[in-house]
């Protein structure tokens, strides 16, 4: 089959591309749209490094076909900051040393945004369970959890 034309919205802007049926949304974001912030850690939906938000829903972009993206509103890590101004989640990840190699970090930040959008005051247990699909090899998770709590407090205006 020849490539399929896709019209979609990424980080609030219209995007168009051609995709093969077997291509993942992750492939299209990285290779076609040059949005390389989302990472491929596993390609099987286990690690969360490819996390994006589609129509308000947190998903793994490696398990979405690029050809499904038509009509979707997609938010990637590139859409979290406001221009040059870091989002509080990003700021608190930096302040709390919640990253080392940084490979999992885009996925964690997107997943955290999705969490705080629906639950502005999560307990530690809720944070850990929500982020269970995001794996980190470097930090041991503790500083990530603290960063999320810190960001949540900041966003609540506490």
């Amino acid at each position: 089959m020849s490539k399929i034309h896709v019209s979609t919205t990424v980080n609030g802007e219209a995007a168009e591309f051609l995709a093969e049926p077997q291509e993942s949304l992750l492939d299209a974001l990285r290779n076609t749209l040059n949005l390389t912030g989302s990472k491929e850690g596993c390609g099987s939906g286990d690690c969360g490094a490819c996390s994006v938000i589609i129509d308000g829903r947190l998903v793994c972009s490696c398990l979405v076909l690029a050809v499904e993206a038509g009509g979707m509103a997609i938010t990637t890590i590139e859409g979290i900051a406001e221009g040059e101004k870091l989002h509080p989640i990003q700021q608190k990840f930096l302040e709390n040393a919640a990253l080392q190699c940084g490979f999992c970090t885009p996925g964690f930040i997107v997943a955290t945004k999705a969490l705080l959008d629906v639950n502005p005051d999560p307990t530690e247990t809720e944070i850990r369970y929500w982020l269970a699909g995001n794996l980190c090899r470097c930090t041991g998770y503790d500083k990530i959890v603290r960063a999320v709590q810190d960001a949540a407090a900041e966003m609540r205006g506490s």
Partner: protein
Amino acid sequence: MPSLNYVAPTTVSDAVKILAAASGPTRVMSGGTDLLVQLRSGRLKPELIVDTKKIPGIIGISGSAAEGFTIGAATSGALLSEHAGLVAAYPGVVEATNLIGSTQIQGRASLAGNLCNASPAADSVPAVIVVGGTVTIAGPAGPRTAPVESIVTGPGRTSLAKGEFIVSFHLPALKAKTADAYLRFIPRTEMDIAVVGCGVSVTLDDSGVITAAKISLGAVAPTQVMVDASCIIGTKLDDAALAKLDAAARAVCNPIDDKRGTIEFRTKVAGVLARRTAAIAVARAQARA
């Protein structure tokens, strides 16, 4: 990957026509959280993917405890968990589906996919079986309804004929003093495949005696298996009944031996989970009118 085609029909009849006419290996796609993994690993080599998500009604939940619920086949676990009425009426079904994967997987994974992927360890299947769930299937011979427990015929195999696909799930009207529950054992806290899964639904009379019960075990046989619930009928799930239930659960186990659990371990845990899940279901039913 050699030629893979993708199509997203916008009506049930178009989907049936495409599936019936497909000459090569074909897969229906709901959330894709099993399908895409198997595509990437090469375990499945379809020539055509038929994405059902553009069919009106294939995503969505309607109904109530009094009328029963209709759940579109491609409805995500996340949507199920957000439906207050469904959560209140069938907490076991929702807690089972909530155990599948991660938050990201929940954003896409569906009841139809979990059922038709036909893993022996599927989490939603025992839970939907014990509440009397049925499916509406579209196909070349017209629509038909079937009990959920008739769909899985073996690991990775279903009773669906060529051209057929599931359009919706139906959970019956909730009976009085009836409640369900689901528990699962996995080696870690999240993100693993069931070593044992147990779904239970019980109905009590006004004095708290169990008058009806269904118990289904997952991951301990090639398909989901029913436990003989007669040992708890007519009881209030006292210790003697629980001990008999433990034995009845162990008796139907025919599990595999693998890194997640030995045959002996899975069998023992099946008994443990049957007791615990039944106790939760009874407590919930007692609290209900």
